[in-house]
């Protein structure tokens, strides 16, 4: 299997052109293999969540909380689904032609890329100004939670820290998506000067051949990484034990019980605006 594809420029020098498309199939395989491995593990594992009686006691202690806890605001949900649509469009328009499905994909691809770019810019501003910016990031302070989560996965009752607003898996996934998406967006914006668009004069000479090679390879690596990441994301979104999270991305809220069962109230304190009346 090749990792990179090389060409020759008009001076007959070797230049990088893009990644080998073998990597697409490798990423697809990795995504599906992870899915199968995780699903098999979940069949046999005994993941420990908070016991029902413990949750009952917490519900009694937190009876002042509203019945519904807002997990994702309407704006945040709209961003998520716009970004998801753009991401699917990007992946389908990028990789279906490589898989042999031929259609005029370029305009669809860069249009979706611009939508993704705009939505990411919006998200950065929205998360910085209106959301708890640090709640989605991971750092050394999360090591105790990581240890506790790993032990719970192996069936141990661990009293240790529960997640704040976002489970550790969500935060790690977000980090991976940030790296891949920013790479694909930055390289993609540069690549737009190589195709005809209404916005820019086409000019492939803003970089030298070797720099362009790195831009194309970065775009390709980030693209195939996103294939695997999206497979994993869709897989977790449809898993029964994660459905409460997916549902909250549609409806915006979780129940008080789900909040207490899966989260640490000390790490995700409910503000007045995050609660709504009991239905």
């Amino acid at each position, binding site marked *: 299997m090749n990792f990179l594809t090389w*060409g020759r420029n008009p001076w007959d020098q070797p230049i990088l*052109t893009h990644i080998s498309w073998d990597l697409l199939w490798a990423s697809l395989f990795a995504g599906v293999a992870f899915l199968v491995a995780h699903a098999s593990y979940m069949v046999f594992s005994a993941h420990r969540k908070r016991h029902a009686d413990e949750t009952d006691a917490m519900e009694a202690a937190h009876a002042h909380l509203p019945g519904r806890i807002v997990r994702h605001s309407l704006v945040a949900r709209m961003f998520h689904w716009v970004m998801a649509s753009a991401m699917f469009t990007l992946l389908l328009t990028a990789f279906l032609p490589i898989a042999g499905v031929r*259609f*005029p*994909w370029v305009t669809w691809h860069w249009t979706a890329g611009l939508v993704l770019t705009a939505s990411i810019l919006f998200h950065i501003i929205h998360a910085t100004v209106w959301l708890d910016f640090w709640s989605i990031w991971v750092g050394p302070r999360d090591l105790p939670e990581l240890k506790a989560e790993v032990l719970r996965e192996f069936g141990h009752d661990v009293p240790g820290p529960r997640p704040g607003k976002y489970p550790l898996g969500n935060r790690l996934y977000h980090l991976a998506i940030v790296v891949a998406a920013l790479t694909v967006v930055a390289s993609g914006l540069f690549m737009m000067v*190589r195709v005809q668009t209404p916005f820019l004069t086409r*000019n*492939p*000479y803003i970089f030298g051949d070797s720099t362009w090679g790195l831009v194309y390879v970065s775009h390709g690596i980030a693209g195939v990484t996103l294939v695997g990441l999206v497979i994993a994301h869709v897989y977790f979104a449809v898993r029964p034990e994660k459905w409460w999270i997916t549902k909250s991305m549609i409806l915006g809220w979780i129940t008080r019980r789900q909040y207490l069962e899966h989260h640490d109230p000390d790490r995700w304190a409910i503000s007045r605006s995050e609660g709504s009346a009991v239905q």
Partner: protein
Amino acid sequence: MAVIRDPMPAFELFQPTTVADAQMVLRRYGATAWVLAGGLDSLDWLKDRIKRPEAVVDLCSIPELKGIRETGEGLEIGATTTLTEVVRHPVVRERYSILLEAAEAAASPQIRNQGTIGGNVSQDTRCWYYRAGWPCYRAGGNICYADTPESINREHAILDADRCVAVNPSDTAPALIALDAQMVIQTADGEERVVAAEDYFVGPGIDITRMTILQPGDLLTAIRLPATWGGARFYFEKVRDRQVWDFALVSVASAMVVSEGANGPTIDRMRIVVNGVAARPLRLQSVEDLVRGRPANEATAVVAANRAIEGARPLRFNGYKVPLMRNLVKRAIRGEATA
């Protein structure tokens, strides 16, 4: 990249006498095989050492690919029939004169004696960046050298460009589309596939490395001309830099059925195709729809011509193609004689 024009690199030459034998060789060599008909496009590639096939399959010894046959539905032209044979055929002259004009406009008499109609429609683009062996999109790279701030792109596309801005150079292709011809393809699996001439050509959005739908192992075996448009009012015009021998800057081919109405001649139906403006011959369906039922007069010609150029996006040096195309469409609808 230096162009070397000394003797061609070695390859295996096959001269099969049946289509089945030709396809057997093509299957054996896959993408490393090269199909040779008249050789006028092929020998440039081979002598310039830009295409280096392992095997060349010469189709000119296959009798079933030669000649023009009258059928119940019209005319069937073998793919290796020379352009001169097409021009001289009495039925072509009588019923499909637009094809005669187009074939006669191709290159020089010597080239028409050698060049085949299958080769003429299947030939590669003449973008000189690509023909010189530069690693552009069409050559499998990721750059178009013909559309940069410094490019010389006087002959390139004004419509339907998608990364690559090369144009289709065929003279007979627009005439065949105007006649609603059918292309008969023997696929690599040995099956016969018949497609409309319009669908035989592909733009870079669909496949940036090919001009036609032919895949490795496929052979164009014949072109069928239906009687539908036989004897219609035809118009063909090719504008080129040198009248004696050159590729088209822009060409137009149209077939029109006109009836006499109370207010003069009325266009009942029309097919109109332009070439030299995109990577494939463009059938102007919006123009066809616009003129249907309208009088064949100056006003219709002006409206149709303006419709034809909608969406045109000239490059640095080919802005002249926009008014040229507009005027050719206008002349096609007027049906006026070539100047």
